């Protein structure tokens, strides 16, 4: 990690799946364990690091998160928490799914945590039929089986259609 502090001004270029390039300060990129491992093992000699699974819109969000958290040494935890909740506020499910996948791929644990938590908070009180649609899960229960599972757990469905 010492090298990253010495070379604080070093920058690297990330390329999104849709071809957009982002110039990123190294200490910001180090929020990602994937990028850190690449830099440590010197796999980053290439000019541009392609991130084939992450589109530009998502990558911009991810890097915004990383920048805030990389620069956070001087700021307070409370400030970061309010940044996190503001960051995710009003984000729709598609954007959250993109973030979770990007955070998972780039190994950014903090971002994975808050995005997964936001998805959980959003679906927590939704009926299971709606959750099935949100995740595009195929219903492999027969109507009888589904009714039986539901009947067995009737207490958990209190107040649901």
């Amino acid at each position, binding site marked *: 990690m010492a090298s990253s502090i010495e070379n604080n001004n070093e920058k690297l270029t990330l390329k999104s799946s849709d071809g957009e390039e982002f110039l990123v300060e190294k200490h910001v990129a180090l929020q990602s364990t994937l990028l850190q491992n690449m830099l440590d093992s010197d796999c980053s000699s290439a000019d541009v690091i392609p991130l084939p699974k992450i589109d*530009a819109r998502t990558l911009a969000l991810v890097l915004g998160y990383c920048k805030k958290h990389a620069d956070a040494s001087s700021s307070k935890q409370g400030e970061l928490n309010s940044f996190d909740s503001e960051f995710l506020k009003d984000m729709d499910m*598609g954007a959250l799914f993109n973030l979770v996948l990007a955070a998972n791929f780039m190994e950014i644990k903090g971002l994975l945590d808050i995005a997964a938590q936001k998805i959980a908070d959003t679906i927590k009180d939704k009926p299971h039929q709606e959750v*099935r649609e949100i995740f595009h899960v195929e219903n492999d229960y027969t109507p009888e089986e589904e009714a039986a599972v539901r009947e067995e757990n009737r207490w958990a469905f209190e107040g649901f259609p």
Partner: protein
Amino acid sequence: MARKSSSNKRPNSTTGGGSPSGTSPLAETIANNLDLLSEILVRLPAKSLIQFESVSKHWMSLISSSHFSTTHSSRNPSPSVSGLYSYEISASDNSKRLNTVSFRGHRNLPSLTFLDGLRGNNDSKPVIQHSLNGLILLRHFDDGTTSYIVCNPTTKKCKTLPPGCFSKLPHLAYLAFDPSKSPHYKVVLISMYCVDVYSSHDASWGHVFVADIYFTNIKGVFWNGAIHWLSDGNGLMRFDVDAMEMIAIPSPTKPKILSSRKILYFGECGGRLVLAQFCSGFPMAFGLLELDKDYSGWSVKCRVDLTRLRSEFPEMHNLGYKFFGFRVLYVLKGEKEKDFVVVLAIPGRVISYKLRGKAWDVLPGLCPSASYDGGAYPFVETLFPV
């Protein structure tokens, strides 16, 4: 960070992948990635997960797997109590019927009718002995033999413990476990000279002999790795479950703990042991005390006067032989740090009484009769595997 490309479309979080067709491959990628799906689902409360078992067979098998349920319960170690199980006693034939009290509006508690499958030859039913952190311990006396059953009402899973050589003497039975510390539970049976302990870790019983147990008839309470009892003469006993050791705790001099018939409640609340005892000379008032973490003494948190509540519910004048006009079923922390909520049984009703502001609600469910004996078993939702 700077964008090199000339594209001027701004990242707009509110429209990202908004259309259903846009999210579909994404959603499928996540739903098919077991690690990622678990990462999301593990953050849901147990009750939502029980509902989402109806999403698909795949979700059902994930949610009910022992790996997922262990992870979920260790990451959600102390969900709040959502209600109580308690036995109503029929005035006509003294038979017991299990009912529930719901703390959160009309939310139901899981029914325990799935235990009916365990009924014995002579139609004997298992009876609840203790509940802790979402598990329930039942004793089943059938055809002259006693067996113990641990069940999780949330998941409807139960396990009959292997027969042990537990004492023929009368004994009390307790659960001991803390999902934040261990994925295993213990069952502790206490008789006059012997303590039998079942550990789910190696699925076997062990025992230890103990001398001179003098505790009152008030039920013991699991807290901080030990079961605690009030002993005669102002003191406490605790059985350290891991060390298998009975320890007497010297009694603090002040304030005085009254004799057991003046004690209305002994339990755990907000990470501390609490005790409710009558205020001398005031039949409708009691003090709520909290034990210091180092056992150095009790501190009086507040004095509760139910005179006003009685003027609202005059049936509290009508005392049955086991009632003082009310019973304390449960004490929990209120929304504010120093606030307490006391759950009271009064003839025909269960009331939650907020000490701050003296506000009350009638809770749905249980309807205590004059012969009601006040044993109440808190329920919390958990996936903890038995």
